[in-house]
């Protein structure tokens, strides 16, 4: 797999000035709305603690809860499937669809199906897949992956959407009025719900006690996808379990507040049993999750409820866009999830962070995201996955900084300071610093030299 180069990809995003400025401001607005929602709930921090504890409890008793969930779901008349990886998941979906002679599948947004690359898999086999979430549909029509796990097309301006729709849905390219564009989407998507032979959703939560899958949306498209066609399939990652309905309440209070700064999503839909004369299937997907559960330092990332709060607050994500991460999951959570799938391919991602820690403090389930980013850097170094330049620079810096004589020799002479300092203090070519920034003027003398002259021996 080709390595991702986040820094290079980010430069293209920043070059599109209007998009970058809008993107930064739009996501910052979400962060501020989140702050306001958090501030009006006195027990917000307590909720975060609870949510974290419930998830840690569930994950450390996962086998029991999964079995409880399966038994309940089966008792409700649902068929439960287990998929070890993406390939098995896609095969299960495909077999179900062919068994029911499905030609068109409507689906709501699901990061898990993105992770499994389900859509291209089905399309290659002649099944038409229609994304029904507005943002996700925009991305599908533009042949791009989602750039954000909650607002998939947030990197696009409305003019960009008008162009995509004009090209693919034959709309007016000069009309970028959001109402017009949404209405066009509605008009041109509705008939798929009626015609499709199958519908699919992901799942925000799966409740062991009830055997039900819970989907939170703002557009109601998941309800149409699940309820109109005769066959309904829900794909759920095994980490989405919560033990009881009472536990779910904690997460429902946190999810939309953290994600969009709204008290709750427009729809919180509980799917528990097939409709009369319909079929309901739930696919429980592992795809690397069990392996991560066994990683002492990194299993906490399984607590993630995919709210995107860490992305909204991340100053790097806001200025580089989700697509620059070259992965299904972008932003801080992506930085710690992706290397568990492919360390080499995503080796640059843990360095796409200033370790500022804002992500950790907005996370509704208290994942120590920035500490895990730091932890991944150590793992990468241990596995020789640091870029050559960085590793070489660190070796030199380590040698100089652990030897007082060498260190003094390197920095005490002013001329030498100009020559050597930026290189060994900044660890890279000067032009990376100086391209958009001035280089500090070296002083006449170091602190050390001043001290020797003014203090040493005078006291």
């Amino acid at each position, binding site marked *: 797999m080709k390595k991702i180069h986040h820094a290079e990809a980010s430069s293209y995003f920043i070059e599109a000035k209007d998009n970058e400025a809008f993107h930064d401001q739009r996501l910052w607005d979400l962060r501020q709305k989140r702050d306001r929602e958090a501030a009006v709930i006195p027990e917000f921090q307590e909720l975060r603690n609870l949510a974290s504890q419930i998830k840690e409890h569930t994950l450390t008793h996962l086998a029991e809860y999964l079995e409880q969930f399966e038994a309940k779901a089966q008792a409700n008349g649902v068929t439960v499937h287990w998929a070890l990886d993406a390939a098995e998941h896609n095969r299960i979906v495909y077999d179900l669809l062919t068994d029911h002679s499905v030609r068109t599948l409507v689906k709501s947004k699901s990061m898990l199906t993105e992770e499994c690359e389900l859509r291209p898999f089905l399309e290659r086999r002649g099944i038409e897949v229609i994304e029904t979430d507005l943002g996700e549909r925009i991305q599908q029509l533009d042949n791009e992956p989602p750039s954000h796990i909650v607002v998939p097309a947030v990197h696009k301006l409305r003019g960009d959407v008008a162009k995509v729709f004009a090209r693919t849905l034959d709309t007016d390219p000069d009309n970028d009025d959001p109402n017009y564009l949404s209405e066009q989407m509605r008009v041109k998507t509705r008939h798929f719900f009626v015609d499709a032979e199958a519908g699919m959703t992901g799942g925000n939560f799966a409740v062991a006690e009830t055997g039900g899958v819970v989907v939170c949306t703002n557009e109601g498209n998941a309800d149409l996808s699940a309820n109109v066609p005769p066959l309904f399939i829900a794909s759920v990652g095994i980490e989405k379990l919560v033990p009881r309905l009472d536990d779910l309440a904690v997460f429902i209070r946190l999810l939309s507040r953290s994600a969009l700064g709204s008290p709750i999503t427009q729809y919180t839909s509980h799917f528990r049993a097939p409709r009369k004369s319909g079929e309901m299937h739930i696919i429980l997907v592992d795809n690397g999750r069990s392996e991560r559960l066994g990683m002492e330092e990194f299993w906490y990332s399984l607590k993630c409820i995919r709210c995107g709060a860490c992305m909204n607050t991340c100053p790097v994500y806001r200025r580089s866009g989700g697509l620059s991460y070259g992965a299904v999951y972008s932003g801080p959570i992506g930085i710690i999830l992706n290397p568990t799938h492919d360390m080499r391919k995503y080796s640059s991602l843990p360095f796409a962070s200033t370790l500022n820690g804002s992500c950790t403090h907005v996370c509704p389930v208290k994942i120590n995201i920035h500490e895990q980013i730091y932890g991944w850097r150590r793992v990468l170094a241990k596995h020789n996955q640091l870029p050559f330049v960085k590793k070489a620079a660190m070796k030199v810096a380590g040698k100089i900084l652990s030897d*007082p004589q060498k260190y003094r020799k390197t920095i005490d002479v002013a001329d030498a300071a100009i020559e050597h300092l930026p290189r060994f203090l900044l660890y890279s070519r000067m032009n990376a610093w100086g391209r958009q920034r001035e280089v500090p003027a070296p002083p006449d003398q170091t602190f050390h030299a001043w001290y020797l002259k003014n203090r040493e021996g005078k006291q």
Partner: protein
Amino acid sequence: MKAALFVPCFIDAFFPEVGIATLELLERLGVAVDYPLRQTCCGQPMANSGDQADAAAVEALFVENFKGYEYIVTPSGSCTHHVRDNFDAIPQTQEVQEVRSNTYELVEFLHDTLKVEDFPWAEFPHKVGIHNSCSSLRGLRHASMSELAEPEFSKPKALLSKVKGISFAELSRPDECCGFGGTFAVFEEPVSAKMGYDKVNDFKEAGAEYVVSADSSCMMHQQGCSERLGLGLKFIHIAQILNGANS
């Protein structure tokens, strides 16, 4: 009271005036200050790159220089954060643990340990914008974080408020990272510079004459951005203002 002064490598090399101000300020406050001459760096650059192997000897030297001191004071939030929270490339002996827990950043040392009531020699008739580095803000808890919706507090502001004539500029995004991030500044240059530009523009629009911080490294980056943009902002370390610098 006796304390050892740690002057981080980039302050030693680029901002000697910050080291001098810290030394003089501590002495004014009655602290007997030692400056161990064989000091270099805390190991943070290597460790933040994940490179524990090359951090180890630097951390060992740091302990060698500063062991036995009850107080090790440094005018750098990010170095303090490293020593206190991440300094584990070497075996965690009793000696190492003591050095780690005895290391203080200057602002917290003045605010929490010395509990300084006033700085009668300090006067700074300028409008300043405070930059809390992320290490200081979220690592050392210098100030309340907007993420937590907690009661507001700010140790650097509490100290600066005791300086005659000073006034404060309020930023639109006070807790936003400036994009320095150590090696991030060069390995992720496009985003780093954009974050820096946004940060210094925020200071400018807030009417700040000076940017003041407990971290010179962030300011080195911001100053580079401000100068490139021609904003005319001035940058000063909090130690200098508290020690009586007046411009």
